């Protein structure tokens, strides 16, 4: 190792100490730390089962979600054949909640995912190149910040008209600015680190530096932020549907179900609470998982 003499036993000791710690990669370490976090694991399991439930709803659901019998309107929870009761049109609640998960999860995840792609790109460009690019992109996003998220989503949806695609579109537009802003601030701080200068000093061009050195360090924090937005997005989507701006009846969607069951709250309060409970559980799990992810990804030197 160097010019000073060293006794052989000491050398053996030092080498043993070096080989003892076997490197795991970064993501493997994050994964290991996440697995140790009981809350995150529980949330991930709940979310996984919700997704599986929604995906396999056609196989799992005991009834057709759109088919109801007027005779069995608003049966109570625990009724034989209808474990979770029926809604105001006599449709099986369990089946509707399962099918409703498809739309609700999709409307929670898809806008955030698209906004994540677009917002991160915008933020990267604004943060890395700075100057004019930054002013153009960040001032434009600032305009969106002038309106509360709910109002913005309603306004855009209202202008575009009701419907699934328009709801996704309006929600995506709502989430691009905050994601772009986070991506911009993370990029700005990464850009100023010495390893970016070292890469420039190696002769790399901006594109290569972004691809190899900046992107990997920006995606993590932005991803954590985006996961925390999923719950907001679900609630907003439910709100849009509640107002009649999202999906239309008779499609099952938790927010819409909450709306239509609103009148039945005095007859069967527990049934009308069910869709809300699902939204609550899902968004809570996304939030807690995002928290756990933040902790797991924060690996110190």
């Amino acid at each position: 190792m160097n010019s000073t003499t060293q006794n052989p036993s000491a050398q053996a000791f030092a080498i043993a100490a070096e080989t003892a710690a076997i490197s795991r990669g970064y993501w493997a370490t994050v994964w290991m730390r996440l697995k140790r976090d009981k809350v995150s694991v529980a949330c991930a399991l709940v979310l996984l089962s919700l997704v599986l439930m929604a995906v396999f709803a056609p196989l799992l659901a005991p009834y057709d979600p759109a088919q109801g019998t007027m005779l069995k309107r608003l049966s109570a929870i625990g009724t034989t054949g209808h474990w979770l009761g029926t809604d105001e049109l006599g449709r099986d609640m369990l089946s509707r909640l399962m099918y409703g998960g498809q739309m609700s999860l999709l409307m929670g995840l898809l806008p955030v995912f698209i906004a994540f792609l677009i917002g991160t790109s915008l933020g990267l460009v604004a943060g890395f190149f700075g100057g004019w690019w930054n002013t153009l992109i960040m001032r434009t996003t600032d305009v969106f910040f002038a309106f509360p998220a709910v109002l913005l989503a309603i306004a855009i949806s209202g202008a575009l008209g009701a419907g699934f695609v328009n709801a996704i579109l309006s929600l995506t537009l709502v989430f691009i600015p905050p994601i772009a802003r986070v991506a911009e601030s993370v990029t700005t701080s990464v850009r100023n680190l010495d390893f970016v200068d070292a890469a420039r000093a190696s002769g790399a061009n901006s594109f290569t530096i972004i691809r190899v050195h900046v992107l990997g360090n920006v995606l993590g924090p932005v991803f954590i932020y985006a996961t925390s937005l999923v719950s907001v997005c679900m609630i907003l989507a439910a709100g849009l549907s509640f107002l009649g701006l999202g999906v239309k009846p008779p499609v099952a969607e938790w927010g819409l179900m909450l709306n239509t069951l609103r009148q039945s709250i005095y007859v069967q309060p527990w049934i009308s609470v069910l869709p809300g409970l699902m939204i609550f559980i899902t968004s809570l799990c996304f939030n807690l998982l995002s928290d756990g992810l933040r902790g797991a990804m924060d690996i110190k030197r």
Partner: protein
Amino acid sequence: MSALLRVQDLKKHFPIGKDLFGRPTQVVHAVESVSFEVEKGRTLGIVGESGCGKSTTARLLMHLIEPDEGRISIRGKEFGNIGGRHPVAQLRRQMQMVFQDSYASLNPRLTIEDSIAFGPQIHGVSETLARQQARDLLDRVGLNPSVFIRRYPHELSGGQRQRVNIARALAIKPEIVILDEAVSALDKSVQAQVLNLLSDLKKEFELTYLFISHDLNVVQYISDDVMVMYLGQVVESGPVAQLYENPAHPYTRALLNSVPAQTPGQSKNYIVLEGDPPNPIAPPKGCRFHPRCQFAKAICAEKEPDTVKVSGSHKAACFKLPGSADHQTYIRLQEVSHEPRC
């Protein structure tokens, strides 16, 4: 012998704050007409306190910051982004840099191997070859490749990381390596290991070093020539032995004197300067050191001293030196009584 690296009148002012019309309200005079030469195979030490512009000088040389003015040439070839000069990309093949913060200068998401192999691949070396070279270099800087190659920066100690940074700089096969406080953050026992490594590598790869540090003892040990900077200007430069034994500039004298003795029992008479180095936003007029200088006279506050020869290649910028154009004026003036400034 002609110089390998020649720097002439390097200058950088940073505008800070903007008024309503986008005009800068204040200017940091970071580097002001810095000129020097380094011969092949020698080590130039650059010393000075915080804000003296030594790190900015390093970044200007690498064109990580675009200089306002000045010429940088290697073997007579001038580099820069202005028309007619050789492209900066070529400069960066011949000159590399090691930074102070060993952690911040490595990408936390890349393995050690990827970090070292990155540079050569940019310059067209095949991936297989670049990885092979990375392994050889790791071995050369004293890290067992089979142990470290797949490691991430956070799994290494500070000393090991700095070895990786040195390997990364050498991967491009530069002639000149700028070491910007490269050993300053390391513990003494580890620092000695890295200093030894740097000496060995210098011989083996026939490197030329620019060694930037605030640690005067380390600079004395490793450098052949030394350049002392104060508030963006070079106040004194020369061969290490002459400059340390016979400092000509009052600042150099105070700076060298302020280092506590490393051996007990030698009580020292310190030349204690008043106050901190002033702010480079509004540097004092005339000689920038005059507000803290015990020999300052009226002329020092008015006129910037010229750089004159002390002996051989030893040069300094002070009116006290007999070679100075205004030396006679200085001698005739009364010493001004000193109000400590801060």
